[in-house]
């Protein structure tokens, strides 16, 4: 469905990273953790919508939030919107994370922490989070996760917060500290591949959330096709964005 959504709040949470809250009751009501929306910016500059993950959902207030980083003209124009302005939102789209886990470990890097947040929120108290970023600044996410997760593990490339390294560096240690029945990952592909491999070795089910440029978001245009390990073609927008790791990583 498409819905005209009003910007309720917008705030720069870290340099170049914004959190936008939208009033969008129909979408907020049915969204599942890991799903995304395709936003249409009405300033006349954009023929294509932009896919953004749903980060937090407040179905009672009819609102949801998105976190995004400015990387080009669409996200820049988005960042200029102020309270009361409108967007059009198509969604919720795609398949989110499996919800059957009891105590999953969420692993996110960069903006990948956005869709995972919706999972932490939906499974309040069930998850631990392992988050990685370039530096302390990029880990502003802590405060957003705090209300929903049990344990938080931090890594930064430069060691300015948590342990130095990547999420893949400390993942084995984290696994030793607790028993997880699932690992849900979202971040750069190289990180997801790394985690998926280790999770498989540890025998823990693993889901990953992929990104590909999208036009329709509905499975029609084939902009977002990927190869799956069984030799088929799948569409990130419709069959994903969340896949079982073994479906997509050989």
């Amino acid at each position, binding site marked *: 469905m498409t819905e005209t959504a009003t910007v309720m709040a917008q705030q720069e949470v870290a340099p170049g990273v914004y959190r936008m809250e939208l009033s969008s009751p129909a979408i907020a009501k049915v969204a599942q953790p890991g799903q995304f929306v395709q936003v249409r910016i009405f300033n006349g500059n954009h*023929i294509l919508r932009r896919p953004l993950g749903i980060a937090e959902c407040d179905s009672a207030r009819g609102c949801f939030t998105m976190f995004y980083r400015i990387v080009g003209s669409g996200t820049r124009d988005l960042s200029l919107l102020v309270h009361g302005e409108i967007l059009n939102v198509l969604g919720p789209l795609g398949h989110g994370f499996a919800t059957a886990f009891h105590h999953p470990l969420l692993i996110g890097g960069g903006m990948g922490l956005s869709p995972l947040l919706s999972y932490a929120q939906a499974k309040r108290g069930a998850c631990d989070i392992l988050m990685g970023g370039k530096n302390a600044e990029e880990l502003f996410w802590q405060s957003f996760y705090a209300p929903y997760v049990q344990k938080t593990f931090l890594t930064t490339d430069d060691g300015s917060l948590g342990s130095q390294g990547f999420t893949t560096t400390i993942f084995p240690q984290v696994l030793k500290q607790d028993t997880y029945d699932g690992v849900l990952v979202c971040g750069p592909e190289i990180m997801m591949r790394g985690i998926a491999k280790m999770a498989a070795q540890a025998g823990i089910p693993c889901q990953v959330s992929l990104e590909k440029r999208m036009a329709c978001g509905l499975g029609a245009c*084939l902009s977002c096709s990927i190869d799956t390990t069984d030799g088929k073609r799948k569409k990130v927008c419709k069959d994903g964005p969340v896949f079982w790791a073994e479906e997509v990583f050989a």
Partner: protein
Amino acid sequence: MNCVAKDTLLATDLCGIKMKTPILTGSGTFGFGEEFADFVDLSSIGGVVVKGTTLKPRRGNDGVRITETPAGMLNCIGLENPGVEVFLKETLPRIRQYDMNVIVNISGSSVEDYGLLAEKLDATDIAAIEVNISCPNVKEGGIVFGTDPKAAAAVTRAVKSHTGKPVIVKLSPNVTDIVCMAKAVEDAGADAISLINTLLGMQIDIRTWTPVLGNITGGLSGPCVKPVAVRMVWQVAQAVHVPIIGMGGIMSAEDAVEFFLAGASAVAIGTANFTDPSCITKISDELAAYLAAHRLENIHDLIGKIKIPQKEA
């Protein structure tokens, strides 16, 4: 406006295809129709031109497949499709439920391919075949046929001789003389002509110094190409007798009216489906309103009705 009025205003017949509206979807932008079923009442539109179909399944191009451009987009999907056999066995039976005109867009790498595809599709209940000789994104996409009038005619004849269905030939705008191409396929038996496919374009990422698209170049579509498309429809309409399906950048009923005035008997909506998945319904409603406001009784009263002022002596 009540439904009866709208139906009478927009109903049309395009080379034997009965259509509730003169508005189709552009191949490759609307999947098999079913993907848009939540947004559009598929039985109420003119028809769905499905994604380009080839003899064998195709996985399409690698890398980035779309990118936005000023008032448009580039794509290099590369004709990813399950192949005609899967289409016939799985897709067609599945989409039959929507009670819509299905037009199948076909591409081949040889004249024989086109003939074979037509033969296979002939035995079905599809409404028509659209022959794509203009896909700029794959060598096998027929673009070689789309830039040479003789080859285009050969493909058209091959398709015509293998099917009794209406045959629509979709031309490439990447040519010096579109009228010559149109006449060649008309003479070869085309029942209608689709205009335009995408213009060949390119975008370069100035951060990485690499082409943005995996296939380096891609096809340009959207409002940016509309002036070129309207011009080609107008030029071709004066030169051929078969109906024209106009497309290229239609975002609104106003845009569609330009194509009808230029001489298109029907139009197709492509890129706009990405901007607004229910736009085809809105465009139909607004087109009916435009006709009513101008006291026209049917879309035919608009087709080719451009007035060319006489130059002063």
